[in-house]
């Protein structure tokens, strides 16, 4: 059998490292103690540009970007001394000459315990998110103003579309119905993307942790593999190789999940989506938060089931439900989440909830150990901007966007008030047997 030599192992480590940096959905750059580039990804150039250089390896950051201000240099200095700093909404001019809003974090990395090798800088372009957030806030206050200042009652003008309330006649007087539809669709896609980015931002640190763990496993087993090779112990070498491949698979799954999650879905045609895999990927993305708050997750799937639609959007619904559940139970003594996938034949799925013509539904229920939603709030939870979370913790868009996604898939998303705990039930038309 063939085993890796130490230089080969270093080369593999370096390739994994480079691949992780390259495929991160955030802009990222790794520096040594002199702020010379060790690695960076394309997203970094897009956010931090302009520069004529494609590859910055070995270059001094301040020579490449002489515009880096004194304050930024101080941040780097403090982080090289062990601090970790984060910033919200700093502005840069990007490679295209546009001003972009950037959320960033600078953290030191350690060559060995207590010995800082340099810093890692993460940056995320939140321009679009910030613009959408501001627009939504403006729109909301405009609507509130219309109501508040109106000398006559406006109730008669309200229309409901897809369970959202609009001031129908006022809008339709000014705009053709077709343009209104296109506007709504555009807003919907923007809102979906911006709420996804907000979610990713909240989960970024946890995701780094989830990647570091398999990297640690790969490193240790590569070492054990060398040991085994020296001693000619094929059984141990095989065990190490298997562990390495498992860990690579685990890291790849996280990166794949992220790539999928951050992609815009509008150009993808609908496809058959394996529900087990969908649940699995959503749980992997939430794993760090689940572990952080010591929440036990159980997933029960009766059998392989498929639905038709956009896996990115459906994944977002599940991630949103899981994140809500974590928030709901994290301060409780008993913290668990139970995800149950059932086919339409199962006893737990009520008759007549099928979305498609004659198709039996697939039911996905997400139940947590929380005491349930207070009856006086149940009517509000699917409304846009309704949130009980603190400022900066929730957009108040999760459930309303989730419901609109599910309904466009011909399904339903409901809160089950009869369950002893907090339980949301998602039904989708089933494809195949």
């Amino acid at each position, binding site marked *: 059998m063939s085993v890796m030599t130490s230089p080969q192992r270093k080369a593999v480590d370096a390739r994994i490292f480079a691949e992780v940096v390259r495929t991160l959905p955030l802009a990222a750059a790794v520096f040594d103690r002199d702020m010379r580039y060790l690695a960076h990804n394309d997203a970094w150039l897009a956010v931090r540009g302009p520069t004529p250089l494609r590859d910055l390896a070995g270059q001094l950051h301040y020579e490449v970007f002489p515009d880096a201000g004194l304050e930024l240099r101080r941040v780097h200095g403090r982080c090289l001394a062990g601090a970790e700093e984060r910033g919200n909404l700093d502005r840069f001019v990007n490679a295209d000459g546009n001003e972009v809003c950037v959320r960033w974090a600078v953290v030191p990395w*350690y060559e*060995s315990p*207590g010995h800082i090798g340099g810093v890692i800088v993460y940056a995320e372009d939140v321009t679009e998110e910030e613009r959408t957030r501001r627009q939504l806030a403006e729109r909301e206050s405009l609507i509130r103003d219309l109501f508040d200042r109106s000398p006559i009652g406006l109730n008669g003008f309200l229309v409901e579309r897809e369970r959202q309330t609009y001031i129908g006649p006022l809008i339709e007087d000014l705009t053709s119905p077709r343009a209104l539809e296109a506007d709504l669709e555009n807003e919907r896609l923007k809102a979906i993307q911006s709420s996804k980015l907000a979610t990713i931002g909240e989960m970024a640190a946890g995701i780094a942790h989830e990647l*570091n763990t398999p990297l*640690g496993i790969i490193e240790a*087993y590569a*070492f054990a593999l060398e040991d085994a090779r020296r001693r000619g112990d094929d059984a141990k070498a095989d065990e190490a190789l298997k*562990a390495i491949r498992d860990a690579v698979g685990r890291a790849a799954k996280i990166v794949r999940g992220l790539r999928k999650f951050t992609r815009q879905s509008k150009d993808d045609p609908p496809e058959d989506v394996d529900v087990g895999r969908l649940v699995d990927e959503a749980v992997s993305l939430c794993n760090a938060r689940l572990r952080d708050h010591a929440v036990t997750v159980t997933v029960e799937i009766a059998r392989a089931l498929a639905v038709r639609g956009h896996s990115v959007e459906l994944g977002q619904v599940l991630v949103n439900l899981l994140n809500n559940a974590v928030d709901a139970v994290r301060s409780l003594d008993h913290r668990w989440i139970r995800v149950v996938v059932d086919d339409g034949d199962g006893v737990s799925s009520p008759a007549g909830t099928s979305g498609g013509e004659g198709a039996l539904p697939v039911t996905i229920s997400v139940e947590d150990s929380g005491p349930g939603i207070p009856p006086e709030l149940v009517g509000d939870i699917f409304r846009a901007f309704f949130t009980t979370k603190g400022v900066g913790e929730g957009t108040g868009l999760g459930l309303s966007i989730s419901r609109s996604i599910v309904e466009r898939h011909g399904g339903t998303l409901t809160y089950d008030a009869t369950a002893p705990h907090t339980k949301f039930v998602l039904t989708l038309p089933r494809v195949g047997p």
Partner: protein
Amino acid sequence: MSLPVVYVDDERSLCRVFEMILGARGVPIVTFTDATEAVAYLTANAVAIVFCDYRMPKLSGLDVLAQMGQSVPFYLVSGDLDAAGCANVAGVTGVLAKPFRAEALIALVAEHLDPTP
């Protein structure tokens, strides 16, 4: 017979690989994937050095440190970006940030098992 090295991590595969690596060097090692079991062991048995994951389901690495009832070199192991901050906690000898080199762990074990330079 020297006192054992203890490695606590809810990642079973990491416990297993350090059993392989230290075992191959004749270093006695006891591992736990359950932090409460580790605490039970540590309150009843003298050990040489403890490596303990920071983020575990039942107890954190710092909980294990607080409850283990003996004063021995204690290293926190973590994949968190901000774990280095724990190096200043009383009783924490050092922090090993995942992914770390197996050589680094072996060097620390060697240092604490054999105090002669």
